[in-house]
């Protein structure tokens, strides 16, 4: 073998490098494996519901009413009852009645704050605001829940004269405190990703700072901003402790923001502890978990797709 062939066929990899590479690969795919396992587990357990419960029961159940001498279609969640009723409709209503207002509130303020941080704030203001946001993000949700339950609920009741002291709106306020820092961070990132060249182009055409923000930077980042909102919504759907404490937990079928509600998450958290393992009730709770997981999963996929769209649009 000549020197050159030797050089050309030389392996670049050290055995240790090979090992490290594999280890990194395994940690890289670990998250995929975990997600798949959780998914499988939830669905496997959830599907066992249908051994004894018909899919229609998840909407409502015909129950004979001795007072009315009739069969009545009951759309309710009454898991501990002589005739258990497992309608997920009130739970889904509850989840959306909390997550939707929470996302709206935190998006309005979060997008505003993100724009301020990325485009307007001086370096000094930014350096104070960002750690504060991180602090907010670090508050345990049980603390927020307690605050809502003990203080904010009274305020809200005085202000809106609501029938229920604990209601979906109080929960939504609490949840918006959780989603707000998430949305701010993601919006700020999306805006910062807009290349300086685009801003320069706008300025060079005689745009003011505000015109540049509204007509160039924000439109270019609109996918990233939408993704932030979607992720915030997913997070709001998944929030448990705050809603468990602040929404009153009455599983009502309602579209009234000021009514007490019970969310899917709070329902699982409240009932899972007492349920008999392997019972019908136990499997239904898993099914509710699986449905919730699917919703947040779809939201995450959507936001991913939306972000990729932005990258393509900007050729980044």
């Amino acid at each position, binding site marked *: 073998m000549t020197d050159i062939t030797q050089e050309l066929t030389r392996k670049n990899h050290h055995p240790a490098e090979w090992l490290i590479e594999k280890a990194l690969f395994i940690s890289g795919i670990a998250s995929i494996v975990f997600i798949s396992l959780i998914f499988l587990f939830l669905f496997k357990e959830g599907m066992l519901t249908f051994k004894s419960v018909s899919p229609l029961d998840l909407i409502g159940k015909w129950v004979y009413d001795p007072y009315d001498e009739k069969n009545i279609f009951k759309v309710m969640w009454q898991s501990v009852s002589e005739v258990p009723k497992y309608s997920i409709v009130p739970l889904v209503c509850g989840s959306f009645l909390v997550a939707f207002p929470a996302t709206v509130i935190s998006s309005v303020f979060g997008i505003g704050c993100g724009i301020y941080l990325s485009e307007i704030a001086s370096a000094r203001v930014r350096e104070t605001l960002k750690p504060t946001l991180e602090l907010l993000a670090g508050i345990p949700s049980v603390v927020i829940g307690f605050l809502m339950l003990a203080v904010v609920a009274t305020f809200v009741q005085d202000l809106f004269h609501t029938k229920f002291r604990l209601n979906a709106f109080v929960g939504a306020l609490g949840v918006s405190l959780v989603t707000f820092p998430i949305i701010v961070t993601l919006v700020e990132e999306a805006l910062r990703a807009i*290349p300086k*060249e*685009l*801003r*320069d*182009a*706008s*300025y*060079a*055409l*005689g*745009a*003011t700072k*505000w*015109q540049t923000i*509204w*007509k*160039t930077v924000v*439109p*270019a980042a609109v996918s990233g901003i939408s993704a932030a909102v979607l992720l915030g919504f997913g997070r709001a759907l998944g929030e448990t402790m705050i809603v468990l404490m602040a929404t009153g937990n009455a599983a009502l079928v309602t579209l009234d923001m000021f009514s007490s509600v019970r969310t899917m998450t709070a329902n699982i958290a409240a009932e899972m502890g007492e349920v008999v393992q392997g019972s019908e009730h136990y499997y239904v709770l898993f099914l509710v978990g699986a449905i919730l997981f699917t919703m947040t999963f779809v939201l995450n996929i959507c936001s991913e797709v939306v972000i990729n769209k932005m990258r393509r*649009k*900007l*050729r980044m």
Partner: protein
Amino acid sequence: MMNVPVEEKIFHAQKAVPMDKHNSSISIKVKDLNVYYSSVHALKSVTLDIQKKAVTALIGPSGCGKSTFLRTLNRMNDTLPGARIEGSVIIDGVNIYGSEINVVALRRIVGMVFQKSNPFPKTIFDNVAYGPRLQGIKNKSMLEGIVEESLKKSAIWDEVKDRLEKPALELSGGQQQRICIARALAVNPEIVLMDEPASALDPISTAKIEELIHELKKNYTIVIVTHNMQQAARVSDFTGYFYLGLLVEHGETKKIFTTPDKKETEDYITGRFG
């Protein structure tokens, strides 16, 4: 939203900028211009007159301050943190570094084309209409007129007239650069600054841009930065040679390229240096 009143204000402010047009042939008078980037002294006492309706080329080795100089002419350096400017740049009798200058209005008079083509992620039409819209023009047919005229002036109308509603980013690099030129012309500037507008383009696109520059100088004062000596010789009427932040020599292109006064200029142009 709040951009409407802002727009209004600027629209009027533009008219307030005094533009006493004396019939001199000088478009921009630069006097004793110094630029510092925190500690870097990027331009050192540059004094230069730029002729009206002519092409002035700026040449010199990398880092000598050509882009810095160009950006002082429409105050794009204002957007850089840490940049400090001394001296005066007088356009049509007004020092653009004076205290009462409306920078936004200035940038409508002094347009700019960047080295890297940077169309907005919008349609071709919206790219070109961006500047006029900033000035509050909303009338559709008026905008269409401006867009068409600007695209024609930029020699790209025929290539894009059937796809004005397509994203500008789907065009080739050379086409994108001409869209950027059209976008700059749509604001109806008097002066157009170009920072290496053809450096990222193939020879055919480059030739198109050069032809275009030739055409544009009938109506606009053009200042162009280029690393390409042949290009400077081909397109420009005047040439300035920068070195280490100093304007070493400036004069008619013919003279600079045949009998420069300074030895350094000759060395750079003939490629013995740089």
